[in-house]
C-alpha cells in the first residue's frame, strides 16, 4: 500500500475510530499537525495523571499518562558544542519529545524509550503548554520545579505560567547551584502555588520569619520542608495548611506539648496531618510520649493495633503510611486525632485520615 493515506477523505465516524485505535503518545503528536486533528483528539476526552513543568537548562514539560512518561523539552541550542544561549524562554528552536513506556516484564518493570525531535516553527513554549493542557483536559500544572541553576529568572518563569493554576511549587537542590534564600523568596513571590510547596533539601535555608509568614498563612493543602533548623513553634502555629511535613527541626517534646495544647484550644483548624522531625535528647519513646502528652487528656492505643493513614488523598501523590500504637486526643470541637511518637519523629494525624 502507498505510504500516503487520505485519512481525512474517509467518513467522519471512521476517522474517529482510527483516532480511537491510536495510543496516547501518537494522539498527542497527531494533535499538533492541524486544527482538525487537535479538535478530534480533544473530543477523545484523554486525561493524564500528572503534568509538571521543570525549568532547568532546557525548559521541560513532563506528562505522565500511564503507561507513558512523556517529556517535551524546549531547547535553544546554537550547535552541539556551542555555549548555550540563554536569552528568552519563549520560542524554542528545537522540540524534543521523549517517550518512556513502563513495561511490565513479570518480575520487574522496565522502560522502553522512543525519542522524537523536530525544528520548532513559530510556536512558543506557552503555546505548547496551552496545547497539551487543552487536548488532555488537564487545566493545571501539578508541579513546577525550580532549581538553583535554572536558566531563567523567576520573572520570566512567572510570565511563562501566568494565569495557569500551579498546584505545587517545588524547590530542589539537585542542580549544581543551591537556591539562595533571596532567590527562594523571589520565586515564592513570583509564583503562587494553589495547593502545596515542596522545599527539598535546603540546608542553607535560613528562615526569615517576617518574609516567610505570608506563605505559611495561605490556605494550602500541603507543605514539605526537608530541613528547617530555625523553625519555631510560632511558625508551626502560623501554618494554615492541611498536611505538614518537616523533616528536621530543632524542636523538642516540650514544644510539641505546647503545640498540642494550642491545637486542642482551636489553633491550626485546617490541619489534618503533621509530621515533624525533632531534636529530642531522649531515645526512650515512652518518656518522649509522656513529655508530649503532659497535662493533656488522652487515651492510649494498644501497641499491637496497626492503623493506616492515607496521605494526599485524591491526588496523584496519594499514599498510605502504616503505624502502630500512639494515643487519642480530642479537640474542644470534638475532632479526634492520634498523637504518635517514634524515634525523633512526632506525628499528629486526624482520625478521619486513618483506617484500621
Amino acid at each position, binding site marked *: 500500500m502507498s505510504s500516503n493515506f487520505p485519512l481525512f477523505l474517509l467518513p467522519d465516524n471512521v476517522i474517529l475510530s482510527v483516532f480511537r*485505535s491510536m495510543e496516547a503518545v501518537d494522539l498527542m503528536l497527531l494533535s499538533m499537525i492541524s486544527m482538525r486533528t487537535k479538535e478530534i483528539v480533544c473530543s477523545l476526552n484523554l486525561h493524564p495523571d500528572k503534568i509538571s513543568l521543570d525549568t532547568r537548562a532546557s525548559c521541560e514539560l513532563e506528562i505522565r499518562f500511564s503507561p507513558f512518561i512523556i517529556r517535551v523539552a524546549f531547547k535553544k541550542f546554537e550547535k552541539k558544542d556551542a555555549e548555550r544561549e540563554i536569552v528568552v524562554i519563549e520560542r524554542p528552536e528545537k522540540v524534543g519529545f521523549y517517550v518512556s513506556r513502563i513495561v511490565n516484564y513479570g518480575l520487574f518493570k522496565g522502560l522502553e524509550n522512543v525519542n522524537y525531535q523536530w525544528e520548532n516553527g513559530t510556536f512558543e513554549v506557552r503555546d505548547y503548554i496551552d496545547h497539551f493542557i487543552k487536548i488532555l483536559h488537564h487545566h493545571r500544572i501539578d508541579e513546577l520545579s525550580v532549581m538553583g541553576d535554572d536558566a531563567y529568572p523567576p520573572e520570566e518563569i512567572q510570565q511563562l505560567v501566568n494565569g495557569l493554576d500551579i498546584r505545587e511549587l517545588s524547590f530542589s537542590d539537585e542542580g549544581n547551584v543551591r537556591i539562595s534564600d533571596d532567590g527562594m523568596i523571589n520565586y515564592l513571590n513570583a509564583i503562587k502555588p494553589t495547593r502545596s510547596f515542596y522545599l527539598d533539601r535546603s540546608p542553607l535555608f535560613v528562615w526569615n520569619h517576617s518574609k516567610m509568614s505570608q506563605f505559611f498563612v495561605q490556605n494550602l493543602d500541603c507543605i514539605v520542608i526537608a530541613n528547617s533548623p530555625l523553625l519555631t513553634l510560632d511558625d508551626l502555629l502560623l501554618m494554615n495548611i492541611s498536611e505538614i511535613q518537616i523533616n528536621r527541626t530543632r524542636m523538642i517534646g516540650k514544644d510539641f506539648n505546647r503545640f498540642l495544647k494550642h491545637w486542642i484550644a482551636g489553633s491550626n483548624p485546617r490541619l489534618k496531618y503533621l509530621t515533624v522531625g525533632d531534636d529530642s535528647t531522649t531515645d526512650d519513646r515512652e518518656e518522649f510520649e509522656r513529655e508530649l502528652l503532659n497535662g493533656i487528656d488522652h487515651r492510649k492505643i494498644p501497641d499491637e493495633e496497626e492503623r493506616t493513614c492515607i496521605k494526599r488523598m485524591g491526588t496523584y501523590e496519594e499514599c498510605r503510611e502504616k503505624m502502630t500504637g500512639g494515643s487519642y486526643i480530642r479537640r474542644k470541637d470534638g475532632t479526634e486525632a492520634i498523637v504518635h511518637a517514634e524515634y525523633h519523629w512526632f506525628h499528629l494525624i486526624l482520625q478521619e485520615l486513618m483506617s484500621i
Partner: protein
Amino acid sequence: MTSPASSSEVKYLIESSEGNTFDVSGAALRQSNTFNAMFLNIGADGPIPFTDYNEATLKKVFEYCEHSVNEENYSGPKHQDDLSKWDLNFFNEMDQKMFIDVINASNFLDIERLTSYCCERIARMLRGKNTQEMIKVITLPTAEELEAKQKVEEKKAAAAKKVAEKAAETAEKTETLEELPVQQLVQTTRNKLTRKYLSFSNE
C-alpha cells in the same frame, strides 16, 4: 428472491453499482447492522441495492463476512497483532484504492469487526512517527477535496434513503407479517438511516 427466515442457508441477492447481482449467505449478511435494521425481519423482494459500491468491493467485504461467520461474537477492537494469517492476507492483498473502498462499504454496511480492523490498520501507519512524518502519511486534504467529500456523503445519504424506501416497499408487500409492527420498523429504519447520513453530511 429471499425469504424473511434468517438461517445460514438463505441466500440474498446483492446488486452492485454496475447493476450486477451476486449471492451472499444470510449468515454473512447478518454481520451488517445496516442489513439487520432493514431486511432481517421482513426479507427482501428482489436484489438488495448497494449500488454505491462496485462489485469487487462488495465481494471483498462479503468475503470477509463469510470467513468470519463462525467466529465468536464481536467484542470490541482487536489488536492488529492478534490477526490470523487469513486476516493478514486479506488486508495485504488489497491495494490502497480497494482498501479505502472496503472501509467505506464496511462503514455503510456497519460491519463492526471489519471496520474496526481497517481503522486499526490505518492507526498502525501513524504509529511511531513524528509530526512531520505524520503530515506526509495522512496528506491533509485541500478545500476542493473536502467539498467533494461532502458531496459524496450527501449522495450516500440519498442512497441510504433509497435503500430504506425499497425496504419499506418490501414490507408493504409482505402479507404474512402484521401490518403495524412492520410499518413501525420501516419507519424507524428510514428515520435512523436518514439521520445517520444527514449527520455525516452536516459534519
